């Protein structure tokens, strides 16, 4: 647990970066600090490992006052990931990851073998170990940055916009993998971002800060989207927050209707009572929709080229947002529902999803 106890940072010129911050980052959870630039989110983060010293107030790491520890010892107990990874260009990937164990005096061989396991864990192949950072892409470097932060198995991790310098596709991948990793590891994480979407996706708890270092609201993502505490938070979380809030609403198990299918590679069926026919592969994983109105030469088979692949999929226990999106993005208007293994369960229509949305119980007041 990390606890900010009336922490203030005031610079000599009078600028207040963080103003009387009271915040608890619970153990094993991701606490996201989010806000516009100048809101003091990075300053708050860097006060935890004393890269910046608070002007007043105390930051507690469990029951220890961080100000009472030697800074280098405090920092070796806290994993740290920054925007451009900040890898050491002169060290191989494996030695980058093993940095903190080396500093702690761990036997080199053991430190390197732990580092190799971590590389695998963050999804990097073993042959990357002997490379240098310049030989890796931005996304790969960021994975190494995460592995390096985890190397000494610190209970606490600080992450300062770790995914904002990579392209959106890679960012989403890294976010998903990060959430999976956190499920296994259960670290106490403080995560800084300026991106509200990232905040609600990753945070167990989101703290919105406003310029001048004031804490505007601390809440779960769902609560933040449904009940912003004031106009600033409402404006910051965005206009389509009603839609985004559906991302946290589920309808238990989505009820579906069965959907006729055709296997890829099979002969093109002729005559159908519907304009669209769903194609699945051997494992019954949906591949795309076949437009039955399009004329195809006789004897043709169902090939990739004929399929419309625009539709998103929703898992049976998925959110109402994902369900609605599956319907809206499907050329047939029917959202494709799959099980956890990715095999077809059935379809659902937008009208049915809307009914579920309307039948949703109102959020409990807190």
């Amino acid at each position, binding site marked *: 647990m990390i606890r900010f106890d009336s922490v203030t940072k005031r610079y000599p010129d009078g600028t207040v970066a963080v103003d009387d911050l009271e915040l608890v980052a619970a153990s094993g959870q991701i606490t996201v600090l989010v806000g516009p630039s100048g809101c003091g989110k990075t300053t708050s983060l860097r006060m935890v*490992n004393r*890269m910046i010293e608070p002007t007043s107030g105390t930051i507690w790491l469990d029951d220890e006052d961080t100000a009472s520890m030697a800074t*280098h*010892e*405090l*920092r*070796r107990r*806290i994993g*740290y990931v*920054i*925007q*451009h*990874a*900040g*890898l*050491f*260009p*002169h*060290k191989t990937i494996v030695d980058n990851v093993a*940095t*903190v164990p080396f*500093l702690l005096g761990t036997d080199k061989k053991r430190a390197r073998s732990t580092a190799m396991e971590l590389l695998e864990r963050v999804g990097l192949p073993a042959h990357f170990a002997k*490379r*240098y950072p*310049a*030989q*890796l892409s931005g996304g790969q470097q960021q994975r190494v940055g995460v592995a*390096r932060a985890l190397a000494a198995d610190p209970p606490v991790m*600080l992450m300062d916009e770790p995914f904002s310098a990579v392209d959106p596709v890679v960012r989403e991948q890294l976010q998903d993998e990060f959430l999976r990793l956190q499920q296994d590891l259960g670290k106490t994480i403080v995560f800084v971002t300026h991106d509200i979407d990232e905040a609600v996706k990753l945070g167990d708890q989101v703290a919105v800060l406003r310029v001048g270092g004031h804490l505007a609201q601390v809440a779960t993502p769902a609560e933040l989207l449904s009940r912003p505490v004031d106009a600033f938070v409402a404006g910051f979380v965005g206009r389509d927050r009603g839609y985004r809030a559906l991302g946290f609403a589920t309808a238990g198990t989505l009820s579906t209707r069965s959907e006729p299918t055709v296997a890829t590679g099979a002969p093109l069926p002729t005559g159908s009572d519907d304009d669209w026919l769903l194609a699945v592969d051997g494992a019954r994983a949906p591949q795309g929709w076949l437009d039955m109105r399009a004329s195809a030469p006789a004897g043709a088979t169902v090939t990739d080229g004929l399929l419309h692949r625009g539709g998103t999929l929703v898992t049976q226990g998925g959110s109402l947002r994902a369900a609605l999106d599956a319907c809206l993005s499907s050329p047939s208007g029917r959202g494709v529902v799959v099980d956890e293994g990715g095999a077809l369960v059935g379809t659902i229509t937008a009208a049915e999803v809307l009914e579920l949305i309307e039948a949703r119980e109102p959020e409990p007041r807190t």
Partner: protein
Amino acid sequence: MTVLAADGASSSPLHFVEYFLDHRSEDLGLLWSHTWLSVVPVIVGLLIALPLGWVARRHRWTYPPIMSITGVLYTIPSIALFVLVPPILGLDTLDPLQVPIALTVYSVALLVRVVADGLASVPDETVQAATALGFRPLERFFKVELPIAVPVIAAGLRVAVVSNVSIVAVAGTIGLSNLGQLFTQGFQLSTPDAYYPPIVLGIVLCVLLAVVLDSLVVLLNRLLTPWRRAVAT
């Protein structure tokens, strides 16, 4: 030192090889002391320049004055510095340390800027990351900042070591044993007629020495920075 001028034919500049063979042990001695005088002041100069450069980088306000002072030092003519060092440091005129000290001053003057700029070449986020991971300041300097600054420092060392080879030769004119004495000998033997072989020999050995020392710095740089040759694949 007496050197007998040979017959007229061998006064051609191209006869420096014969001149060398005739005075081999003496010339090798000159070469050796020239090498020593070229290298040691650069090493000592680097050791002094490292903390100064670190200070200039760490406390930014010290950068301009440190660079101005070292810049002025570098503009003092070498012969004047050789003469000034003994009275300033209370040494005898012709103390054996006189010339090495003056050369060290030049090396420091050249290398302080190089070290400061080398440290400035270390990416900011790398330094931040090192600090955040728990490097203490000295650990960070020797394990992160200095290794990454090596290419810039090596480039400066090449200039320092090569310019030292030529400044050392000037010290030959105030009587110190080094390749510069070959020039003095050449002048002495050039009465009444010009006698070139020792002068050419001096030039050739100075250039060879400079090339060898420069290559050694390049080689050292390569050995210390395998990561520089790693490019995106």
